[in-house]
């Protein structure tokens, strides 16, 4: 199949709702091949949901997600699995298999999807673990890891089969500044070495701006602004400023939609 | 964490134990050994009343099990029970052998007893036994007994 454009992922006017509560209200974004793109937004604005839509775990109620020219929602089971073999996704909470050691977690996809000899798998797994600095922890079970270590093992597992599209859901959460820098650089280097395309969902603006090529900002189910890191740093749009400098007051809603606060409190009194 | 090898070993031990238990049930409890696939021949017999005889009940001669009841049917012409026995080929019986339905103990299971006759010709597959004796039905016995008692009582009254 010849790709129609040099965009690997195209999200075209996507709407999505969990049980009638709209989360995404017409998101448009394109991700160029070979780039590292960040998606940012306040907690609960639907970033994880967007990644799941790209992975085909959820289907949009309106609009279309295309990956490598194929409409994800229209694929059948086999085609979707074939596409997913070329994708990696780092889950927000790691989602390591708790009944396997770190080593087996990283080896999982190699054993499931390839006929590589155990010898070669061994080398590959150790290389992946070395890259995240956890070769020494290969025999530990996930329950014996700290949160940050688990995330790094999950990262090694995500890239096990050198996918063409890698999605990271909050790769920096729970990492110390040193690991954060290392992981950030690793994501960038992996992407360039593999010729892959990466999507990073993150709150860590400073770290993200260092490594990404392009940034999308989401708010209230829409892409509100976009641009290269330099453009954003220079931007004087209020919500970008709010986000980059972490201010509580600004146009982006911090609260989950609710009734009027004073009325709610008053209702409690009356009870 | 257990290594792959020990895990396999334990699972193997488990399956072996389970199969061993099944074998124990089959051999020692269910007596697979006597569930002989030994060749048999078929002999038929009609009875007026078979009482509580069941399929697979033993057929004994001189107290030794020589075969099993294979089938029980109803003969619509003679209104008799048509019973088929499967008898071990190793045991041959004279043509004029008779069959009786007996009970093991007072209330025990019913079985078939064979009493050999004196004929020189032996029974062959598909032959029919001429001489049969039905099961003793306890209810009939009791009612007979009560009848005779009642009759006795009546006579005694008359006599007085």
């Amino acid at each position, binding site marked *: 199949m010849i790709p129609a454009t040099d965009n690997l992922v195209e999200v075209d006017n996507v709407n999505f709702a969990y049980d009638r509560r709209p989360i995404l209200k017409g998101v448009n974004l394109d991700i160029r091949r070979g780039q590292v793109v960040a998606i940012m937004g306040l907690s609960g604005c639907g970033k994880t949901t967007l990644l799941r839509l790209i992975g085909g*775990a959820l289907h949009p109620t309106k609009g279309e997600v295309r990956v490598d020219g194929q409409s994800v929602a229209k694929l059948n089971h086999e085609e979707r699995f074939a596409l997913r073999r070329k994708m990696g996704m780092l889950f927000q909470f790691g989602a390591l298999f708790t009944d396997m050691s770190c080593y087996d977690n990283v080896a999982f996809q190699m054993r499931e999807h390839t006929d590589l000899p155990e010898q070669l798998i061994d080398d590959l797994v150790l290389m992946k673990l070395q890259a995240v600095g956890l070769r020494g922890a290969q025999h530990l079970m996930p329950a014996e890891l700290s949160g940050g270590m688990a995330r790094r093992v999950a990262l090694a597992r995500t890239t096990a089969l050198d996918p063409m599209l890698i999605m990271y859901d909050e790769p920096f959460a729970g990492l110390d500044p040193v690991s954060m820098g290392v992981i950030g650089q690793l994501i960038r280097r992996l992407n360039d070495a593999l010729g892959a395309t990466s999507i990073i969902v993150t709150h860590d603006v400073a770290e993200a701006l260092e490594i990404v090529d392009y940034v999308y900002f989401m708010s209230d189910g829409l892409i509100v602004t976009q641009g290269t890191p330099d453009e954003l740093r220079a931007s004087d749009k209020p919500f970008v400023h709010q986000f980059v400098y972490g201010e509580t007051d600004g146009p982006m809603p911090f609260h989950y939609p609710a009734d009027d606060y004073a009325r709610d409190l008053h209702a409690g009194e009356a009870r | 964490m257990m290594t792959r090898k020990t895990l396999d070993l334990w699972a193997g031990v488990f399956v072996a134990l389970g199969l061993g238990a099944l074998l124990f049930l089959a051999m020692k*409890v269910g007596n697979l050994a006597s569930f002989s696939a030994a060749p048999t021949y078929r002999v038929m017999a009609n009875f007026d009343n078979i009482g509580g005889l069941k399929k697979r009940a033993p057929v004994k001669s001189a107290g030794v099990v020589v075969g099993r009841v294979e089938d029980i049917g109803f003969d619509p012409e003679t209104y008799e029970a048509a019973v088929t026995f499967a008898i071990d080929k190793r045991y041959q019986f004279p043509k004029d052998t008779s069959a009786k339905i007996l009970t093991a103990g007072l209330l025990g299971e019913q079985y078939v007893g064979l009493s050999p006759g004196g004929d020189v010709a032996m029974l062959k597959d598909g032959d029919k036994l001429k001489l049969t004796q039905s099961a003793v039905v306890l209810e009939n016995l009791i009612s007979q007994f009560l009848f005779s008692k009642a009759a006795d009582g009546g006579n005694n009254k008359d006599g007085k």
Partner: protein
Amino acid sequence: MTALTDFLESLGARAIGAVHQLGFASHFLLLTLRNSGMCLRRFSLVVREIYSVGVLSLVIIVVSGMFVGMVLGLQGYDTLERYGSSSALGVLVALSLVRELGPVVAGLLFASRAGSAITAEIGLMKATEQLAAMEMMAVDPIARVIAPRFWAGVISMPLLAAMFSAMGVFGGYLVGVRLIGVDEGSFWSQMQAAVDLREDILNGVIKSVVFGVAVSWIAVFQGYDAPPTAEGVSRATTRTVVTSSLSILALDFILTAFMFRGA
């Protein structure tokens, strides 16, 4: 008035919900069977689960079987002795075990020991997004996680029931022959004469296979269907034990009616 209609309404909703769930469960069983090819080809996946489902249930099954057999020996002797037929003790112990107690009690123990563990494990894997992660790696969790556990349960259950019965007969022998002094020869020979290989033992094995399918099915389904929260998983675990125990008893009645009717 509204209370009554509310009550009826909730009753109706529950009934519809139950039918809905049954339909989903059946569909799920079908999916599991259809996706069993992989784990039967890579049998080490099943072997691993046989370890956690079967081997870890071994102790409770063997010990309970032994005690049940010993109790049968005591009670059976006490009753048979009144009719002077204590030599039939072997028959009583063996028939009660292979026809009923073996499959049923082993099934109940299996449901609470292994069934609950399967549900909790799958439920937690779902709650911690392990199943979703697997799916994103293009590995079908039904083939990789559900099917091996299901088949391990189906394979383990008849073996456990056989061990239970065998241990029970042995326990009855210990109490009856060794402790009370029933004649050893008649204990075994009467048992062997009365227990039929097809009618009794094979039917008992069939029962245990059916129970194995039922418990494993319920356990994997409840785990897969559990809401992905701590509370959801704990409720699903309880439901597995309750539902499988009731199913075992109901199925036992139905199977017994078919198998031993007037034979």
